[in-house]
Structures are given as C-alpha cells and as structure tokens.
C-alpha cells in the first residue's frame, strides 16, 4: 500500500511534501488498476476473448466457403461488426459486474477507507478498465489481420479502442449511479444503441412528410436534436469499411477528438456521483 496521505477530501498531509503525496496517490491508483486487471484475468476474460476469436475465425472460414466473389471483403466486414459488438458487450458487462461484486463484497468500502482521495480510486478503476478494453481491442483485431489491409486494421483497432474506452467510462458512470447490474447494463446498452443510430434518427426526423410541422413535431425535433448534442458520435467510430481500404487519416482524428471530448465529461460526471455517495 502507498505511504500515508490525508484522505478527507483529498487534502495533503502536512507532514508529507506535495510530491510525496502525488506519488502516493499515483501508487494507490496503479494498485487499484492492477487489482482490476488481475480480476479480469481471474474471471477468465482472456479465455472468453480467445473463444470469441476462435469462433470468429470459424465463421470467417464458413463465409469464405459460401461467398463466390469478394470473399475477403465479406469476411472482414461481417467479422468486424460481430467483433465490435461483442467487444462492447464484454467490456460493459465486465465493468458493471466487477463494480457491483466489489461493492457487495465491501471491497469498495475497504479501498475508499485508504488514505487516498476518491478520485484516486476512481482513476485507478478507470485505468484498469481501459487496460482491459485495450487488451480486448488488440486480441479482437487478430482474426481480422487475415482479411484486411494492415493500415486500415491499425486505424480500425485504434478506433475500437476509443469506442471501448468510452463504453467502459460510461458503464462505470452507470454502475456508480444505478448501483444494480440490470439497470446499469440496460442503460449502457440503450446509450450505445442510441448513440450508434442517432444520425439515422435525425435523418428520419428531418424527413417529416408534413410541410407545415405542428408544435408536437417541433418539440419532438428539438428533443431529438438535444439528445444528439449529448451523445458521442459513435456511428463515426470503427466502421468496417476501413478494413477494406486505407481510410483518410482525418477520419481517425474525428474519432480521437470525440473521445477526448467525451471521456472527461463521463469521468467528471462519475466523480460527481462518487463524491456525493455515502457508503
């Protein structure tokens, strides 16, 4: 465990220097991240990822047998979609169940009783979940290496990593706020589906048959626009088309900017909830 620091509101111990305090907090966060990774290993997440990769390769083989032309394209795009959705599902369920189990076992209380601010605990957990997301993104990119261009696959994997980090941070926010497995997973799944289909919903909303929209039409339209403002543009992330031909690198910039904008929002919203919570 790290050296002693004053916990109450994260203020520094008068006896320790500021640099010692920062080191202690970092050390605590790293310990929490390491514990999260160990938990992922012990809950057989690597085995699950390996089974998914093996199944994906089997499916690719089957698709290759069935397709008459463009077999590699069909294999790459279908596998990419399946692997992306599976990766999101695994990350979301892992984050939610891990947090709920930790709370039930009173491990959260034990960690929060340590002489470190709550933010140190939070960032430790977040770092651990990001590491899990990174491992899943890399392992899920392996089967696609057989059917896609290396440059496209690299950008796709980076984009998948961004998508998974957003979903990990969102799941953490949901489970900290909702505390139960089913509501938290449902909220994360609803968020994912909505964020992925928001552009289509906006297009459909803009395509009203009525030339003279009523007040209800306008309210619905404003509501959709407001929800769209709050959601990240997940539909721009990890498109399977990137695997077929090297995309314009600016496409990845959009993904990185969106991730850089959304992660601080989710992290600060989660911290807000965590600081107000009584354990």
């Amino acid at each position, binding site marked *: 465990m790290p050296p002693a620091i004053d916990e109450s509101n994260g203020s520094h111990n008068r006896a320790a220097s500021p640099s010692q305090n920062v080191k202690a907090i970092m050390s605590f966060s790293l310990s929490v991240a390491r514990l999260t990774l160990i938990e992922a290993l012990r809950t057989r997440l690597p085995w699950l990822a390996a089974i998914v990769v093996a199944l994906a390769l089997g499916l690719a083989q089957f698709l290759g047998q069935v397709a008459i032309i463009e077999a590699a394209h069909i294999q790459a795009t279908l596998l990419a979609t399946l692997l992306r959705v599976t990766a999101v599902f695994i990350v979301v369920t892992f984050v939610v169940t891990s947090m709920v189990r930790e709370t039930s076992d009173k491990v959260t209380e034990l960690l929060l009783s340590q002489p470190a601010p709550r933010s140190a605990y939070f960032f430790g957990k977040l770092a651990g979940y990001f590491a899990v997301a990174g491992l899943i993104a890399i392992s899920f990119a392996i089967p696609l290496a057989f059917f896609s261009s290396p440059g496209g696959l690299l950008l796709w994997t980076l984009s998948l990593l961004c998508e998974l980090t957003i979903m990990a941070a969102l799941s953490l926010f949901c489970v900290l706020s909702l505390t139960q497995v089913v509501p938290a997973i449902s909220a994360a799944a609803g968020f994912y589906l909505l964020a992925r289909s928001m552009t*289509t919903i906006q297009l459909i909303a*803009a395509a009203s048959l009525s030339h003279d929209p009523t007040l209800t039409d306008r309210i619905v339209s404003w509501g959709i626009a407001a929800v769209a403002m709050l959601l990240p543009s997940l539909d721009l992330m990890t498109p399977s088309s990137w695997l077929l031909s090297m995309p314009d690198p600016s496409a990845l910039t959009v993904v990185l900017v969106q991730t850089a904008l959304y992660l601080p*929002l989710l992290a*600060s919203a989660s911290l*807000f909830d965590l*600081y*107000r919570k009584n354990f």
Partner: protein
Amino acid sequence: MNERPLTDVPRTVLFTLLIAFSLQLAGKALQPPPRAQASDLDSTPSRIVLQLAGFGDTVPVAKLLMLHLQAFDLQGANQIAYRQLDYDRLSDWLERILELDPTGQYPLHAASRIYAEVQDQNRQRKMLDFVYNSFFADPDRRWRWLAHAAVIAKHQLKDLPLARRYAAAIQQHARGKDVPLWARQMEAFILEDMDELESAKIMIGGFIASGQVSEAGELRFLEDRLKEIELRLQTQKKKR
C-alpha cells in the same frame, strides 16, 4: 439520505464537469448536420437478411425501412431530390418492403402520391407500374392506390390507354364491400374520354341495371351521363 451534500464535491470536479459538458456541446454544434444523399440509396437487402435483422419479425423491419427510405429525399420538404433517386432501386426497395409487410399501405402510398409526382414521365411510369403490379396481390385493399395511378396516367401523363388499363383492373379485380362504386366506374368514364362511347354506354348501363347503385343522386348522375353519351353517339351517326 444516501447522498452527501454538494459541498463535498471538490471544485475541480465541478469545474471539469462544466468545461467538459460545454466542450461536448460546442463540439456537437460545430459538426455539420447529417444530410442524406439521393445517390446513397443502396441496392435492396435480401429478404433473408432482413428477416435475420428483425429476429424473424419482418413487419417492424418493413416499417423502419420505409422511414429510412423516406429519409433519402424528404429533406426539409425539398422534393427536388426525388428526381435524383434511382427509380429502379427505389422500386426494388418498395417491393421488398411490401413483401415484408403485405398489409402495409405505406409503400403504395409513397409510390403513387409521392414518388409518382415528379415531373419526369419515365420515373412516373416506373412508380405507376409498381403500383399496378402490386395491386393484384391484394386488390380489395390496394385499389385506392391504383385509382390514384389511373388519375395520374389520365391527367398528368395524358395516357388514356394506360389509365383505362388501371381502371379496368380495379373494375375486374376489386370486388370487396369496401370498394366504392366510383372506383369501379372509372373505366367507363375513361372510355368516354377516349371516345369509345359504345363501350362506355354498355358499362354505365350495366351499372344501372345491376342495381348496385342505391343512392338516388348517384343514379341520376349516371343516367344523365348515359343520356349525354347517347346524344354524342347520335351526333356522330348523323355526321357520318
């Protein structure tokens, strides 16, 4: 009370939350609004794929597809984009949607009242053909769209034989109780416009004699039309 007071939240967290929220809103506001393109209409997915997408329930898939299709051209009530659509593909999409939801009327409504209203006769004919070909699968429910197609063929395309073909199909196949008499009488009036007065006379006379016309006003209207046709026939005979 399970919550701590707001003052327990460090100011840095509140500040970061406000800044991050503002940046997210600003970032989204700077993004261009989503815009559909007519050229983006892809080829129709197979029925099997759509069945899989709907987990076996095809009707919701059909409804969603119809809204998706509508989004390609109805941007802010701008109907100019219709002309840019590939009408062969559009026809395939409408056919597939109707196949998934045979009782749905939306594809036929869209074909006859929206897509057939463009100022391009080839495209109009494609949509009317779609309505005509679809009509025979369920005449008692789909007659109204074919009736509208007949009106378009007569007044916009000025193609009376085509209008007559549609009207004849309604007259011969739409036999349900809900099919109004005026729809079944359309062929007679189109024949009259085509100057095929003998046929029109027989048809209108047949309606009157059949006893299907129960309303006095409608009966009087038909009898007046019959008299007019007889007069025109006599005039034609005299000229000869």
